[in-house]
């Protein structure tokens, strides 16, 4: 039992929570600006693939990280162009984005590494002490530059949304696009800017996921983008709470990993893997109904 309340557990929880939290913050940015974004999953996946393939080619995880962020911004802006300019339904665009990311990364695996399942291993960031103690693990997790970027994004998002002119405009575009446009603000431009931020932060999560595994695996985002979206909904579209929800999720998943070996021997067996998804369903079922959704979510300034 002592293994449940330990530094190792804390380190694991934080490590697991980072991709969720990045995707959730990305979701907050997109949806607070009024753009439905179910393509977070695809951006996570693309971010992970770009980070690994660039790191593999250049041996520089920093370049990989930058490329991943660039890919995330590009995909997110593509979604924005489709929904805001071409007025394609955001759910359809998001579904297509997810399918495209899954197929394109698979094609990339075949093209670059001639593999159907995973890339070769890469050398990601190595900071902090070596060793298997809980303290060392925690320090390694906290000293990771990607974690630091993610933490900065989580901390800055509520502040920027609440206190800056840009944040105000983003919220205005999300709450009432018609009124926002009527005071001379380009809703489209504000939303695209917010989507760029969203894509960058979400792709950060993808890079973290890939660097953590030290390689890319086909479909490795494994529904995280959707769980993050659930965190956004449950948190009432507030960044801080969404990140906390993701941390709680990290704790749950770390617990699952710790208990896995015990449970595997029982009849439950591999069903323990469904714990994150069952938990998400339960939380969504029991949370209050659609509290705090931006009023203008999915609406446009002009038809």
């Amino acid at each position, binding site marked *: 039992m002592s293994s449940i309340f330990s530094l190792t557990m804390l380190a694991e929880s934080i490590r697991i929570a980072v991709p969720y939290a990045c995707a959730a913050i990305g979701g907050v940015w997109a949806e607070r600006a009024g753009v439905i974004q179910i393509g977070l999953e695809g951006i996570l996946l693309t971010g992970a693939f770009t980070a690994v393939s660039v790191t593999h080619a250049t041996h520089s995880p920093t370049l990989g990280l930058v490329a991943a962020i660039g890919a995330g911004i590009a995909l997110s802006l593509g979604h924005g162009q489709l929904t805001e300019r071409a007025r394609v339904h955001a759910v359809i665009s998001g579904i297509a984005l997810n399918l495209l990311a899954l197929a394109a990364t698979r*094609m990339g695996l075949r093209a670059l590494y001639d593999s159907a399942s995973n890339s070769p291993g890469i050398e990601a960031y190595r900071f902090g002490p070596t060793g298997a103690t809980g303290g060392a693990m925690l320090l390694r997790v906290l000293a990771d530059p990607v974690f630091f970027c993610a933490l900065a994004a989580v901390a800055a998002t509520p502040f920027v949304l609440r206190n800056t002119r840009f944040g105000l405009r983003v919220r205005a575009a999300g709450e009432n696009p018609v009124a926002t446009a009527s005071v001379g603000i380009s809703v489209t431009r504000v939303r695209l800017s917010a989507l760029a931020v969203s894509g960058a932060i979400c792709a950060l999560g993808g890079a973290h996921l890939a660097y953590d595994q030290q390689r890319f695996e086909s479909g490795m985002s494994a529904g995280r983008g*959707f769980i993050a979206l659930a965190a956004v909904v449950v948190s009432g579209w507030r960044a801080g709470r969404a990140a906390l929800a993701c941390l709680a999720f990290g704790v749950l998943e770390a617990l699952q990993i710790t208990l896995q070996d015990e449970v595997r021997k029982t009849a439950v067996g591999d*069903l323990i893997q469904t714990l994150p*998804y069952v938990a998400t369903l339960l939380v*969504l079922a029991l949370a209050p109904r659609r509290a705090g959704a931006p009023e203008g979510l999915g609406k446009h300034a002009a038809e």
Partner: protein
Amino acid sequence: MNDKRVRALLPIVLAIAGGILLFNLIAFAFGEAPASALRVAFEGTWGTPYGFGQVLFKATPLLFTGLAFEVALRAGLFNIGAEGQLALASLVGALVAANLPASLPMPIALPIVLAVAAAVGALVAFVPAILRARRGVHEIITAIMVNRIVDAILPWTFSTVLGSTSLRTADIAPGAALPRLDRVVPSFAGSAASFAFPLAVVIVFAAMSLLDRTRPGREIRWVGLRPEACRAEGIDVERRMLLAMLLSGALAALAVSSTALGYKGYYELGLGAGAGWSGIAVAMLGRGKAIGIVLAAIFLGTLEQAGLAVNARVPKEAMDVLEATLIVLVAVASRVASKRTGVVQAADPEPEPPRDNPAPTPASEEARS
């Protein structure tokens, strides 16, 4: 009338032309002369009777999943859970089919298996459906969660419940199997096209006409168009949403007829995977018409089979890239087309009454246009 039909078809033609262009670009990127890759793709599909049989075989599950996505879309819902609905229904359906007595004749055995599969599919769809109808939770998040849960349940059922290591069920009873099409069209010999294809076409036309001509079917559509108006009219909106979603799950599950029943004769892990996702593209390309769904399914079946034909030169994953791009292309093209029509309407002398609140375009219409 004729002009209208042309306008409805134009986006699809444009999207397919764009898709072929993209395929050539991808082939070129993999160092293939575009025209030669295209020729291989054609020869492997429509070029031979066997290839064409394979196209029909690949198209069959897409007919069911495309119809399934369309039914939910009519109610303004996005059923992206077809993947999980089909997988669990295939497993349970094949298990039931394997345990039927071998002497049971087809007119009894086949309906039993299909009914069981449809019921399981509806049950899997019930989770996102009830959460949406009662709790207002978006069905997309919940459907993905259910998909992933099913993904874990399947291997667990094989290993823990059935105690088998082969990750497949026993062979199904002969009465539950659908015969291959080469029984009546000998030149299809060797291809996996079965009587599931004509069955699927009949079900697509029957379901679409029921949706258009029966009261519950039309109510599903109204709910997708104007839920508030339906509520005012006394239509139970939540119940119609539930009905559409359960129907969608049941229809997706029927795709088992072409995989376990018409092809393998048993269910193994991963059989039929991907059909749920392709069904979305089928529904988008099909434009809400039965004939559209049939043609779209055959087109995407062609893509899938062509992917296998060119796999040695261009990875077959290129076809999935193409499919996702087609969803976007057809959505953009039809949006542009409907904008054109919008201009014509705006030029109408009848002025529109002023509104305080511009009504948002309903989900079911906007998604398609």
